[in-house]
Structures are given as structure tokens and as C-alpha cells.
């Protein structure tokens, strides 16, 4: 029973991972690529790790520490990367609209 739950969670997670890959490939400019690439992949990898815990319940300690590490580091690194790119190049899009120009 819990195996089926694990498989369903891993399937959902891999669908999110594929969505992040498609977004990374199809989005028009850098900031939107970053948006698609990091958020969806964080959710997807967390779902996959919870599914793996359901498949092998003896590994729960190591895998939950891994999930905690991903939950701390991945949004942080994406935020820092976005901020530094904005400070250097602006928004890098074609429309030229920059809402944050005053408080750079």
C-alpha cells in the first residue's frame, strides 16, 4: 500500500522536474528561466525524496536531512543569483520595462 503511494509521489515529482526542464528551455528571457528552473525543481525533488522515503522507510533520517538541505539552499542560491544578475545587467529582457530602477 505504501509502495503505491511512493510511486505516485515520485511520478508527481518527476512530472514537476520535467516541467522545470521545459520551462528552462521555452521561457523567453533569463529571469523567467530562473523562475521556472528553480521553484519547480525544488518542489519536484522534495516530492521525489518523500516518495523514496515511502519506498525505503529505513532511510528516513538521511533523506530528511537531504530534503532539509535542499529546502534551505536552493531558494537561497536562486535569490542570490537573481539579485547579482539584476545588479549587473538589469532584467535582461526585450521589453525594457524595469520596475525596480529606483531602488537598485
Amino acid at each position: 500500500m505504501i509502495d503505491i503511494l511512493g510511486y505516485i509521489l515520485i511520478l508527481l515529482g518527476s512530472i514537476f522536474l520535467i516541467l522545470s526542464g521545459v520551462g528552462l528551455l521555452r521561457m523567453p528571457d533569463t529571469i523567467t528561466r530562473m523562475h521556472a528552473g528553480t521553484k519547480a525543481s525544488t518542489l519536484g525533488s522534495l516530492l521525489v525524496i518523500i516518495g523514496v522515503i515511502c519506498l525505503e522507510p529505513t532511510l528516513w533520517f538521511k533523506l530528511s536531512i537531504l530534503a532539509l538541505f535542499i529546502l534551505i539552499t536552493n531558494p537561497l542560491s536562486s535569490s542570490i543569483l537573481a539579485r547579482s544578475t539584476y545588479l549587473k545587467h538589469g532584467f535582461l529582457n526585450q521589453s525594457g520595462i524595469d520596475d525596480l530602477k529606483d531602488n537598485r
Partner: protein
Amino acid sequence: MINFLILLILFAIFLSFIRFIKGPHLTDRVVAFDTMGIIAVSLLALLSVSMKDTIYLDVTFVFALIGFIGTIIFARFNVAKDSDD
């Protein structure tokens, strides 16, 4: 079943790999590198379950650590290039 899931995750890695090769800007490549690292963490966790050998899990933690450090150092590099023009 688990082989099918591994193939799905490999397809996701392939999609972000195309952006990693193509990406015109440095930030595109770094984002693709970060995403590939996170997807590879879940791939390695799944592979270590499918190989029935739990000691492989240490590599996944190191993988997440390397992705984090690499991304932050490239962000630092972006800011440093700011001063030369």
C-alpha cells in the same frame, strides 16, 4: 516501474542540458547547472534505491553541496565584473 521513473528524470536532465549547452548568457548556464544538480540529486536517490544499496546516499548530499557553492560563487563573479565597465 522504477526504470520508467528513472527514464522520466533522465528526460528532465536532458531538457535542462540543452539549455546548458545553448544558453547565450552566463546566468542561463549557471541556472541550468543548478537545475541539473537538483534533478541529479533526486536521480541518484532513486538509483540508490533501485540498486538496493543504501551507502550510495552520501554522494547525493555532496552533490547538493557542490551545486550550492558553485551557484553562489558564480553570483559573486557576476558582481565582480560590475566594476570593470
